[in-house]
C-alpha cells in the first residue's frame, strides 16, 4: 500500500512476522516440549490432531455403513452368522466415536483452546494445567474406546439404551468408562473457558465487545459444566446395573428402561447444542469478516446463544415421543421443542442480513459459511416435522431423523468446523493454502453431502427404519444414491485434508491479517507469539472494519491508526528471559 492513500496523520500498524524465538510452534523444541506444554495454542493443536484422527476413523466407518447398505441384503458384511452383528458394531462405533471423540471436542477443544484466550486478549486460559489434563483425559478416553473395539466390540448404538446394553455381550463397560472419562475432559474445558472469560478479559474487553465466537463458547461451556455430570452419573448407574443388577434400569430387576432414556437425553440433548453452538459462533465471525461488514444484530445473536443454552435443558423429552410418556408430558415437550427453533432462526436471518450490502470475498471460509447456512437451514426446518407430534409418530426412528441430525451435525457443525479451520489455519500455522483447492473441497463437500442425505429424508418418510443392517428391496435405489453421495463427501474431505497438509510444506507465509478480521487474534503475528500479547491489547468493536485497509502489494490487510506513541513503563532487557524460565 502506498503511503499516498493513507489519510493524513495516520500510520499503518502491522505486527509483521514472528521470529523463530517468538513463534509458539518453534520457541521450544522436542516431543517433551509438546507433551508437557501448558500453552493453550499447543494444546489446541494437539487436540486438532487427535480429533482429526478420530474423525478419519469414524468417517471410514461411515463409508463402511454406506457401502454395506448399497444392496438390500448388505454388501460388505455378508457372513450369515456374524454379518448383522458386524454392521451393528460399525454403526455403533461410527456414532460413538463421532459424538464423544470428535464433535463434542471439535470446535470447543481444538479451535476453542487456540482462540478463546487470544480472542479475549489474554495470555492463556485461567487454568493451563487443567487444560493439559483435559487433553490427556481425552486421550485416555480414546484408549478405552480402542480397548472396547479390540475386546468384543460395542453393539448398543451410541445411546446405550437399556435393557439391551445391560444384557448384550459386547464391551459396554469399557465404552461407557471411556465416555465417562471423556465427560471429565469436556467439563474441564468448559470450566476453564467460563473462568477465563469471566476473569481474564483485559481492560476495555466488555461483555459486548467480545467476538460472538466467545459468546457461543461461553454458552457451550455452561452446558458442558451443567449437563455432563448427569451423563457421568447415568453411565455409572448403567455399569452398576450391568455388574450388580441394582434394579434401576433393567425391568428384570424391577427397573425402568425409560428412566435411562430420560437420564441419557437430559445430557445428550444439551450435548447437541454443545455440538452446534460453537458452530454458530464460528459462522457469526466468518460471515462478518468475509463480508467486511459489521455483524447484524450482535445482541440478538449473543442472547440467542444463551437462550439456546438454557432452552436446551428442557427439551430432552422429544427423543421419547413414542416411548409411552403420558400424553400431557409429550405435548409439553413438543411445545418446548418448538421454542428452541426461534433462536436458531434468528441467527440465520441475522447472518443473511450481514451479507446484505457487504463486500463479500468468496474465500474458502466464506464458501464454507454459505454451505453452512444452506445446509443448517435445511437441518433446522426439517426439525419442525419431528417436533410436530402427529408427523413424528410416523417419522420417529426412521431415516428422516438420520438425515435431519446429519444436516445439523455434519452440514452444520462439521462444515462450520472446516470453515473455521480454513479461516484460522493461516493464524495457527502461519501458512496460506491454495484457495482453489479449498473452494474445490467445499464444492465437493456440498454436493456429496446433499447427495448423501437428501435421499434419506425420502427414505424416512417412506418408512425405512434406522439402524437396519438389511432392508426391503423397494428402498434400494435411494440407498444407492446415498452411498455414492457419501463417497463423494469422503473425497471432498480428503481434498480438504490434502490442501491443508500441502500448505504446511509449500504454503506462502501468512500475513498477520489475511482476511481483514478485526478481532484480537489478527493483531498478533501469524503464528502468534507464545505469549500472545506483549501488553494488554487495545480493544475496540470486534466487527468494526473502518480501520482496515487491503494492501495489494503484500496481499494482506493492515490496520491504520492515528500516529501515537506507546510509552512502556519499563523496557525488558531481553524478551527471551521469560521463555527460558517457562521451558
Amino acid at each position, binding site marked *: 500500500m502506498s503511503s499516498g492513500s493513507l489519510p493524513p496523520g495516520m500510520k499503518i500498524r502491522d505486527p509483521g512476522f514472528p521470529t523463530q524465538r517468538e513463534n509458539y510452534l518453534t520457541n521450544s523444541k522436542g516431543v517433551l516440549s509438546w507433551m508437557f506444554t501448558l500453552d493453550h495454542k499447543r494444546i489446541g493443536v494437539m487436540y486438532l490432531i487427535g480429533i482429526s484422527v478420530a474423525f478419519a476413523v469414524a468417517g471410514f466407518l461411515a463409508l463402511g455403513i454406506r457401502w454395506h447398505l448399497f444392496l438390500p441384503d448388505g454388501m460388505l458384511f455378508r457372513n450369515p452368522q456374524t454379518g*448383522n452383528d458386524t454392521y451393528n458394531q460399525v454403526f455403533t462405533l461410527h456414532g460413538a466415536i463421532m459424538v464423544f471423540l470428535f464433535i463434542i471436542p471439535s470446535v470447543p477443544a481444538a479451535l476453542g483452546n487456540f482462540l478463546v484466550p487470544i480472542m479475549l486478549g489474554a495470555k492463556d486460559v485461567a487454568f493451563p494445567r487443567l487444560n493439559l489434563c483435559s487433553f490427556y483425559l481425552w486421550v485416555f478416553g480414546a484408549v478405552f474406546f480402542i480397548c472396547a473395539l479390540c475386546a468384543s466390540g460395542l453393539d448398543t448404538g451410541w445411546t446405550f439404551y437399556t435393557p439391551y446394553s445391560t444384557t448384550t455381550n459386547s464391551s459396554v463397560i469399557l465404552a461407557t468408562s471411556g465416555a465417562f472419562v471423556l465427560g471429565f475432559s469436556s467439563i474441564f474445558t468448559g470450566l476453564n473457558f467460563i473462568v477465563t472469560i469471566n476473569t481474564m478479559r483485559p481492560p476495555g474487553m466488555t461483555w459486548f465487545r467480545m467476538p460472538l465466537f466467545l459468546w457461543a463458547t461461553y454458552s457451550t461451556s455452561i452446558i458442558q459444566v451443567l449437563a455432563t455430570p448427569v451423563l457421568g452419573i447415568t453411565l455409572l448407574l448403567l455399569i452398576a446395573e450391568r455388574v450388580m443388577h441394582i434394579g434401576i434400569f433393567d425391568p428384570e430387576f424391577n427397573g425402568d428402561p425409560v428412566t435411562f432414556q430420560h437420564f441419557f437425553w437430559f445430557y445428550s440433548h444439551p450435548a447437541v447444542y454443545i455440538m452446534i453452538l460453537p458452530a454458530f459462533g464460528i459462522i457469526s465471525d466468518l460471515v462478518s469478516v468475509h463480508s467486511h461488514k*459489521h455483524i*447484524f444484530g450482535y445482541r440478538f445473536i449473543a442472547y440467542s446463544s444463551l437462550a439456546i443454552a438454557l432452552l436446551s435443558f428442557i427439551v430432552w423429552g422429544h427423543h421419547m415421543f413414542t416411548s409411552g410418556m403420558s400424553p400431557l408430558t409429550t405435548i409439553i415437550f413438543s411445545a418446548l421443542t418448538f421454542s428452541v427453533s426461534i433462536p436458531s432462526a434468528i441467527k440465520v436471518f441475522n447472518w*443473511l442480513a450481514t451479507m446484505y450490502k457487504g463486500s463479500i470475498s468468496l474465500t474458502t471460509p466464506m464458501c464454507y459459511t454459505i454451505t453452512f447456512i444452506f445446509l443448517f437451514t435445511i437441518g433446522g426446518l426439517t426439525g419442525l416435522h419431528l417436533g410436530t407430534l402427529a408427523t413424528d409418530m410416523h417419522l420417529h426412528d426412521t431415516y428422516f431423523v438420520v438425515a435431519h441430525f446429519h444436516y445439523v451435525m455434519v452440514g452444520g457443525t462439521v462444515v462450520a468446523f472446516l470453515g473455521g479451520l480454513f479461516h484460522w489455519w493461516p493464524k495457527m500455522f502461519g501458512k496460506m493454502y491454495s484457495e482453489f483447492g479449498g473452494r474445490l473441497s467445499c464444492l465437493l463437500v456440498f454436493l456429496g453431502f446433499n447427495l448423501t442425505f437428501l435421499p434419506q429424508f425420502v427414505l424416512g418418510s417412506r418408512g425405512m427404519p434406522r439402524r437396519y443392517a438389511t432392508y426391503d428391496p423397494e428402498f434400494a435405489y435411494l440407498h444407492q444414491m446415498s452411498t455414492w453421495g457419501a463417497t463423494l463427501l469422503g473425497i471432498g474431505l480428503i481434498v480438504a485434508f490434502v490442501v491443508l497438509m500441502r500448505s504446511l510444506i509449500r504454503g506462502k507465509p501468512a500475513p498477520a491479517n489475511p482476511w481483514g478480521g478485526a478481532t484480537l487474534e489478527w493483531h498478533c503475528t501469524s503464528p502468534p507469539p507464545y505469549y500472545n500479547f506483549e501488553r494488554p491489547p487495545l480493544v475496540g468493536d470486534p466487527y468494526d472494519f473502518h480501520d482496515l485497509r487491503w494492501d495489494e502489494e503484500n496481499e494482506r490487510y493492515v490496520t491504520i491508526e492515528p500516529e501515537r506513541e506507546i510509552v512502556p513503563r519499563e523496557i525488558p532487557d531481553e524478551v527471551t528471559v521469560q521463555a527460558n524460565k517457562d521451558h
Partner: protein
Amino acid sequence: MHSMFPASFSLLGDYVPEFASFPESASTFAERNDSVYWYITWICVAFFIPIGYCLFYFAWKYHKPKGAPAESQVSHNTPLELAWSILPSILLIWMFYAGARGFLDQRVPPDGGYELKVEAQKWSWLVDYGRGTYHPELHILLDEPTRLTMTSKDVIHSLYVPAFRAKKDIVPGRYNYMWFEPTIASEKVSDEELKQAKAWNKGNPAWDYDHHQFTPEGYRFFDLYCAEYCGKDHSMMQTQVVVHKTQEDLDAWIKEKSTRGEVPMEEWGQRLYQQRGCKGCHSIDGSSGTGPTWKDSYGAARDLTDGRSAAVDENYVRESILNPKAKIAKGFQPVMPSYKGQLSDDDIDSLIAFMKTLSKNYKPEPDKRSAAEEQKGAVEQKAAEDNSTATESGGEN
C-alpha cells in the same frame, strides 16, 4: 391432499409409485398426518426458497474485489429483528397445535373395537388372537378400530406400520398400547399366482415375503417393522399386516391357525419353529446363535454352565421351553424367555418331534411301534412325569 401437494423432493411421486414420498395411506391417521406433513413442508419451502435465494444472490451481487468497502455498515435494526423473531412463532404455534391434535387422536382409542395382544421378542413378533391361537402375522379387520396391547419379553422394541403412520415403543416390564383403523383391505392374489408361488417355494420351509409380496394364503400385506434397535437381527424383525374385508374372512383365517388339525407333528413343529421365535436364536444347520443349535442336539449329551451335564431328551427340552433358566448350556447366556402358558402340550410335543427329525443322535425304534404311536406314548408318559410343571403352566392343557 396428497395429490394436491406433490412431494417436494420427488415430484414424480404422484405418477410413479416408486418415487412416492410416502407409503400407501391405509389408516385413518394417514391422510391427516400426511396433510400436516405437507403443510409443514410447504411452510419450510416458503422459508427456504427466500433464504437460499438471498444467500446466493447476496454472494453474487455483493461479491467485490478485496479492499472494496461494504456498501453499508448497519449493525442492527431492532423492529426488523423483533419482527422476524416473533412472526414465525405464529406458524410454530399452528404446527404445535395441529401436531398435538393428531397425536391425541392417536393416543386415545375409541371404545369397543378389536383388541389384540402383541408380544415382541428378539427378533420376532407374535400376535395373540385369544384361545391359544398365536401367529406372527397381524390380521385385522377393515374399518374396525384395532387396539394392540403390547409387551416385550426382552429389550425395547417398537411396532411401526408405515402404511398406518403409527408407531409405539414396546418397553419390557410394562404394557404399551396403540391403536389404528385400517381403511384399505388387503387384496387376495389369484389362485393361479398362489399356486405358482407355492411351486417356486417348494422345499423351502420359510416363505419369502419380500420375493412374493403376498402371504402364504395369498393376501397382499403392509410391512410391519421393529423401529427400536434391538440387536443382531433388528432389521429382520419384520412381519406383515393383513387387513380382511369381512369378519367371516378373518375368523376363518384365525380358525385355520388355531389348531394343528391334520397337520403332521413334525411339520407343525417346524411351523412353530419358524413362527414363534425359536428361529431367532436356535439354528437348524449347526451354526451357533444366541442359543444352541437344534441340529443333532436331540439325544446328545450337553454340558451345562454349572458343570453338570444333561441328556437332551423330552424332559430336558420341555423344561428348557417352560423354565429356560433352570439349565443353561455351557457357553450361552440365560436370555431365553419362558414359553409357559403360550405353547400347548401338543405344541411342545410337535417341537420335540421336529427336533428329532434334525438329529442323527435320535434313532426311532421301528421294532416296537410305528413312529407316530411311539410319540403319542411318550406324550402320555411325560405328562404323568411332569404333572407338577403341567399344573403350573395353567389352563393350556
